Structure formats: structure tokens, C-alpha cells
């Protein structure tokens, strides 16, 4: 739904959601930092850190950026971005692996 024909009530609901999301983000931030001081092995550390970051990112995108209530073309475009972003992330692999003999 687009935000034009929103009643004051709807907005109030939104506001409550925003505060919940805020709380969640704060907790997750605490988690990331806390986990860091546990000094996990590197693989685990990377996994946790990125997982938590992704969750936080998703929360921001879905609720603050209203992605959850969007529809239509924008998702196709975001999907496209996801693919090309993956291609970009594939790039370090390219330079590193499989340069013959090196």
C-alpha cells in the first residue's frame, strides 16, 4: 500500500513498530559488540557479525524504508541489484583464485 490514503490511526501503528524496531536494533548492536569480545575463531566471528548485520539491515530496509509495504517493479530492480552485487563480490575470487601458476 502506498502512504497516501493513510489515516492517523495507521500512522500511530507505524510509530509503535518503529519503536520496537529501534529496540531490536539496539539489542543487536549490543550482541555484535559482545560477541566480538568473546574472540571467537575468525570464521565464526565473520559468520556472526555478518549475520547480525544482515538482520539489522533487513529491519531498516523493511520498516524504516517501508519496503515491507512496497510492491511491484521495485522488487525486480532490487533483485537485479542483488545479482550484480553478487557479481561484484565474486570479483576478489576472480583475482585471487586460478591465476595460473601463482
Amino acid at each position, binding site marked *: 500500500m502506498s502512504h497516501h490514503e493513510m489515516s492517523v490511526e495507521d500512522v500511530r501503528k507505524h510509530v509503535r513498530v518503529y519503536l520496537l524496531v529501534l529496540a531490536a536494533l539496539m539489542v543487536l548492536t549490543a550482541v555484535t559488540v559482545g560477541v566480538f569480545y568473546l574472540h571467537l575463531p575468525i570464521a565464526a566471528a565473520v559468520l556472526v557479525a555478518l549475520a547480525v548485520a544482515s538482520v539489522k539491515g533487513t529491519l531498516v530496509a523493511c520498516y524504516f524504508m517501508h519496503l515491507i509495504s512496497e510492491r511491484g517493479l521495485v522488487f525486480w530492480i532490487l533483485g537485479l541489484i542483488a545479482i550484480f552485487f553478487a557479481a561484484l563480490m565474486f*570479483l576478489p575470487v576472480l583475482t585471487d583464485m*586460478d591465476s595460473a601458476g601463482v
Partner: protein
Amino acid sequence: MSDHAHSHGDHDLPFWKKYVFSVDHKVIGVQYALTALVFLFFGFSLMMIMRWQLAYPGRPIPLIGAMLSGTLAADGVLVGDGYNILGAMHGTIMVFLGIVPLAVGGFGNFVLPLQIGAPDMAFPRLNMASYWVFFVGGVIMIGSMFTKTSGAGSGWTMYPPLAVTAAYGETIWLVGMVFLITSSLLGSVNFIVTTIQLRARGLSFFRLPFFVWAQLVTAFLLLLAFPPLEAAAALQLMDRVVGTSFFMPEGLVLSTVHLSHLSGGGNPVLWQHLFWFLAHPEVYVLILPGMGIIAEVIANNTRKPLWGYKSLVYSVIFLGFMSFIVWAHHMFMTGMGTTLSTFFQATTMIISVPSVIILTCLIISLYGAAIRFTVPMLFALAFLPMFAIGGLTGLPLGLTASDIQLHDTYYVIGHFHYVVAPGTIFAMFAGIYYWFPKATGRKMSDWLGKLHFWPSFIFINAVFMPMFFQGMAGVLRRQYDQTEQLAGAASHGLTLMSSWGAWLLALAQIPFIVNFFWSIWKGQRVSDNPWHATTLEWAAPSPPPHGNFPAVPVVYSGPYEYSVPGVSEDFCPQNVALEA
């Protein structure tokens, strides 16, 4: 609906608001086109100077030799650095300041909103901003040539460490590049929003003219491919200005001086990846709008619907998508092993298929047609075989094994010039002759047009055809003096042919320049739809007023309803309901 289109009263604007800082997409389009044409001619002139050095190495350049500055030439003879600077600037100018602004900024801006029945672009002020950012970027970039310590001379690809250790002009080049990238980003956002949100009622996606599709895909390429280059440019600026080592490995020694002040730890190949991640899609940015124009002109002058309109559309979308995953075929010689090279060879072969489809559709459209050999049509027809040659010669370069011998030779130069010079630039000429009446209300002279076409067609082949044979013989690109090497010395005759071809090609442009300016004021007045075309731009008055259409058009039919059986006229404009 754009919230600006209807708002401002247009005709009472002061001159500078109406023609200089205008927000009208048509004025901006013309501004783009004229600026780009000037840049194109400048870039062409640089190449003509280089061709002299190649044809007559070490001999003073006639006429202008004396005028060239210290960093470019010594007593009338081009110097090595000068040659490299001209080479780098020729590439940069043609690609970033010439063709893209003309094809996208010029034709896109002028034609696209008209073809979708919109009163203007979605963000007119943004549109103006993107033109002026482009303009400033262009001036900065050309300015980089004239720095005291010598300009950017590491090729348009700016490979580090050479580019990082090179003279100061390089920094200015990078700054200019950042401006140009910003401009394209603003532009592409504007194009996509306009195309998707401002289409006239009834103009569904599969009723869009092919030109609009081409522009839409191009806009996506610009939007998504340029940012990585922007990042790369930022990193190279850091390396040059701040002294970081993103692209600088440990233990570099420059003419026996150990660069121990660098932290090292960087990777020169990283730049190539980021650069080609942009630059391969960029190749399609150069060619797709051209294809769009060709499709329009061919449909109009064959007087029949394009053959396989839908497969054209799907092909162009597929092209756009694939162009993001072929980039490393520019890097086969960096020490790539079998796994990766296989992947990128495969994608490269795959991407050639949609190009073949597009070409086939266009040529089958000629079958059973009623061809009008107008000047735009001549250029459009010439485009087809020229582009075919350009495309086919890409094959041996896309296969790693044959690339071993051909990489970095003149074969490559021949290949991509066939795509962009007799390819895209001919398409641009077709577009100029085709839409000139819409922009001015007057037609360009046919006679001068043909006088422009035939010599151009002959000489442009004289320039580029020899390059394939030189490349085969092993003549390398970016050589200040080819005869320094056995292969170059042996094929010096072909070099002479290319050079003379280039200079004669320049002469062949005179009729165009004369025709262009003469026709603006003295050209034959024509109706709003002189070509009897179907697409919406011809439903607007010539030249279209601010806001384009007297009444917002409604679309009833597909883009190319020509020679519909049982209809009196041989064309049915999109905005006219078919008499059934």
C-alpha cells in the same frame, strides 16, 4: 505526471533561462548534442595528428606541428608522451564526451519524452543539472591535456601502476571522470523514471518504440555499471593524491629508485576488474542507442513493421543483462587460468547470440519492403554490414586461444572501431538527418547528405579495414612508432592507407557541417510529420513547444503500423484509432 511540465509559462522566459539554463528536455537535448558533436570533432582531430606520426614517424607535422605545446611536440615532431596523451584523450573524448552524451544525452533527451507522449522528463531540473555537470566534467577532462607537467597519457583505460606514477594531468583526468559519472547517474535515474512512469495512456511496454527500449536498457547499464568505476576512480585518486597503495604492490622500483615510501600491499589487477566491470557494459551503452535509432529509421523507410519486434526487445534486455558478466574477457592475458577463462569465454559467446538476432531481425525487415533510400536510411543501411563486421571480428578476440596472438594488436582497434565508428557514429548521423525536421521544422538537404554519406562510407572502411591485417601481422596498438618493430615496419604500407583514409574522412565531413548549419536557417520547411512516421514524436508540432503536445496523446496501436492492409495511408500513427 511531472509536476513541472504544465507549471511554468514558457515563452516569456528570458533568453538565458530559455536556451542556456533551460529545464526543457528538448533544449537540453540539443545542448547535449551540439556539445557532443564539438567534442567528437575535437577527438577526431587528435586522432588525425596521431595518424601523421604513424604514417611518417619522426617527421614534422604539417601546418599545426609548430602550434603544439612543449609536452606534446618538439620542433613540430610529436613526442612519445604527446602521442600517448593524444591517444588517451582520443579514447576518453570519443567514449565519454562524444558518443554517450550524443546518443543518450542528445537523442535520449530530445526524442524519448516525445516518443512516450510525455510533456517533459520526470525531473527537469535534475536534467539540467546533469547537462551542466557533464559540461564541466568535459572541460576539466580536456583541460587535463594542457597541464604544465603533461596530461593523462596512460590510455583511456588508465591502468595502474603506470597511471598512478604518471604526471599530474592524470589527477585532473580522474576528477573530470568523477563529474562525468555523476552526470550519467543523474541522467540515468531521470530516464528510467520517465520511461516507466510518464508513458502516455495506452502506451503499454510492448507498444514502446524500440528506441525507447534501447534507451531504457542503456539507462540501467549506466546506473549500475558506473558506480564501480566511480569507486575505482576514488581509489586511484587516493593513490595519486593521498599516497595510499590500493593498486601498488610492495617493492616497486621506478627507474632504479625503490619506492620505499609506499606501504605496498595493493593489487594492480583490481583496477582492471573494477574498470572493465564498467567498461564492458559501457560498450553496450555506446551501441544500444545506435541500434534503437537504426530500428526507427529502418521501420520508417521500409514502410513495414519491424520483423520480430518482440525478439528485438527480449534480445536487447538480454544483452544488457549479459554485459555485466563478460568483463574479464578483456583480461585473458593477465595470467588467467582455465576455469575462469572458460566461464568468460562462454558468456562472451552467449552474448554474441542476441546481437546476431537483432541484426537478423533488422535485415529480414528489408524483405518485402518498399525501401525509400532517404539519407537517414542510407546511413542506417550502411550500419548493418559495418556493425556485422565489428561484431564478427569480436569472435577471435573472445576466444582465449586466438586472443593470445591478437590481444593488444591492431586487430582489436579495428574490431571495436567497426562497432563504434561506422557502427554507432553512422547511427548518430542517421538520427540527426531523421529527427532534424522535428527539432527545427526544416529538412536537411538530400544532395549534401548524399555527398556526405558516400565518401564517408568509403573512407571509413579505408581507415579501419587495414587494421585487421596489421593486427594479424602482429602490429601492436599504442605504438608511437610502429616501424620500430619488424611487423610494423613490414606492414607500413597499410599504415599509410589508414592514415590517408582518416584525413579524407575528415574532408568528407565538410558537407555535413555545411548542410547542418545551412539547413537550420535556410533548409526546406516541412510538415510536422515529413517522413510519414507512426511514432508519437511526430504527433507534436515541429519544433515542439514547451510541454510538447497541445493535447495529451492517447495511444491506440503498436509503434510500427506501416502499410496496414485496407488503410488508405501507408502508415497509422500510434495516436490515431484504426478505422476498423
